[in-house]
């Protein structure tokens, strides 16, 4: 392990995240992990890592890092102003940094979360099978908390790149976000509101975090006679739950169980769009069937495989 960065400014909420912690969800420990799986994996591939190494998940802006040893870095996800020693560098490509450099990550122009990968991955102790920070459980990452001034970040073993890497294609994030969702699990509670839910724009409020995104818009009411709450059941990433005030909440990665009925569930390939949504952005839900969703899922996985293939050194023989 090599000391690689000293945190000179942490940013408002920067945490170490990997793919997630899968072994203990039934014990109340949520999966956690990078909210935007796609940008997270891309950042790793861009610096030559396996796609599931720990990265920094940066929310909106920051951090500033002093470089303690040479490494390749890449920032993927939200379009953030990144500068090395004051000189702007581009996102979605690898950048060589040298001992004594200062990396400054500025505000996101679009999108909400950036992923900063480094050669070898951020090295932190494994906690219950993952490096991911789960702040309310105070585990993972750096002492179970967001970065602080003075933290020293180490990286794992890994060779520097022979050639810079860039992403051949990447998503653009805008203020109008279209996501596909499968009705259910409690769609029969909302028969009369289903059309409304799938027709109007819902605005992301500032109550949007790794646990869930509270939306504002036309209230979704339960059908007359439908129960207000349900017997608590497992919560899934993408579930759109409807509390009694009718304002939907999209559940993200830090919740394991809940007692509000859910009108619909955002499909996996569209969850990264939610992760990149900012307060004030509009979310439009579009209904799909389970079969349609599985077709989209297969295509999405193929797209991920193509990108992985693009970065495999053997490509082109």
């Amino acid at each position, binding site marked *: 392990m090599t000391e690689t960065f000293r945190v000179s400014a942490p940013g408002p909420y920067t945490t170490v995240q990997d793919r997630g912690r899968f072994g203990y*969800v*039934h*014990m*109340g420990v949520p999966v956690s992990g990078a909210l935007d799986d796609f940008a997270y994996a891309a950042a790793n591939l861009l610096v030559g890592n396996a796609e599931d190494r720990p990265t920094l998940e940066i929310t909106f802006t920051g951090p500033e890092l002093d470089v303690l040893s040479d490494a390749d870095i890449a920032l993927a996800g939200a379009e953030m102003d990144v500068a090395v020693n004051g000189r702007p560098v581009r996102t979605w490509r690898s950048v060589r940094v040298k001992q004594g450099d200062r990396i400054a990550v500025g505000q996101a122009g679009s999108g909400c979360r950036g992923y900063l990968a480094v050669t070898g991955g951020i090295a932190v102790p494994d906690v219950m099978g993952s490096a991911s920070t789960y702040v309310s459980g105070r585990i993972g990452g750096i002492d179970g908390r967001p970065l602080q001034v003075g933290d020293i970040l180490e990286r794992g073993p890994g060779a520097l790149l022979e050639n810079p890497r860039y992403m051949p294609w990447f998503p653009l994030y805008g203020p109008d976000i279209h996501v596909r969702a*499968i009705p259910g699990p409690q769609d029969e509670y909302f028969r009369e509101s289903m059309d409304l839910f799938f027709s109007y724009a819902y605005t992301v409020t500032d109550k949007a975090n790794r646990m869930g995104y509270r939306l504002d818009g036309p209230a979704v009411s339960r059908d007359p006679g439908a129960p207000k709450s349900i*017997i608590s*059941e*497992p919560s899934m990433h993408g579930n759109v739950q409807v509390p009694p005030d009718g304002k939907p909440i999209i559940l993200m990665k830090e919740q394991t169980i809940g007692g509000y009925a*859910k009108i619909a569930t955002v499909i996996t390939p569209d969850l990264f769009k939610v992760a990149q949504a900012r307060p004030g952005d509009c979310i439009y839900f579009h209904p799909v069937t389970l079969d349609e969703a599985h077709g989209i899922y297969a295509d999405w996985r193929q797209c991920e495989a193509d990108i992985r293939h693009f970065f495999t050194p053997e490509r082109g023989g």
Partner: protein
Amino acid sequence: MTGKAFSHPRIRISGDRSFLVEYGEAIDETVNEKVRTITELLRKAAPDGIELILPAYRSIGIVYDPLKTSYNEISGILSRLEAQMGEAVIPEPRTVDIPVCYGGEFGPDIEFVATHNGLSAHDVVRIHTANPYRIYTIGFAPGFFYLGGLDPRLHTPRMETPRTLVAAGSVGIAETQTGAYPLDSPGGWRIIGRTPLKLFDAARKEPFLYQAGDSIRFKAISPEEYTRMAEGGQK
């Protein structure tokens, strides 16, 4: 089977990668035991592609990779397991003792709970420790158990203004429920005592002391025992 269990489980689609299987309509021990049994059997029989198995009060959440398995394959397995339930051998649920120092600085609300119910603090301890409580499910926070069977003589409303900090290990009552806080957190439960055990310790080989389907038995201990156990636990 009681009338609260479904004769056929009800499936609810919960997105492109998960679904819920419901075994009954209510918070009911028979239904919850079925959830526990199927969960144990499915953990052994799970095909490649099942990523999470999440038992709750009356349902199991299943997360799967649709490229490796299918909803149809899994529901076929579930029906087969249900048919085998009668002769299946699964581990007996355990009863886990949780020592609690009641009242005093560890249980600042015990007098409120007593007065609210026309009891003495001693009665509260006696009733609270009288019977084990089934863990119906675990969630909300690491190791946070939802217990059944609080004696109606102890039912007490939540605090009107929740505390900003409740110490880890605190044992409390909220309406018809009793439970414990595994971590320091804000909370509005009426706190009647505290356990010196670490209910969740990520650094321990087994981070948790129990699982869903087990029972919790609270045992009253003295402040001296509390101190001794708390110090012992830190070694």
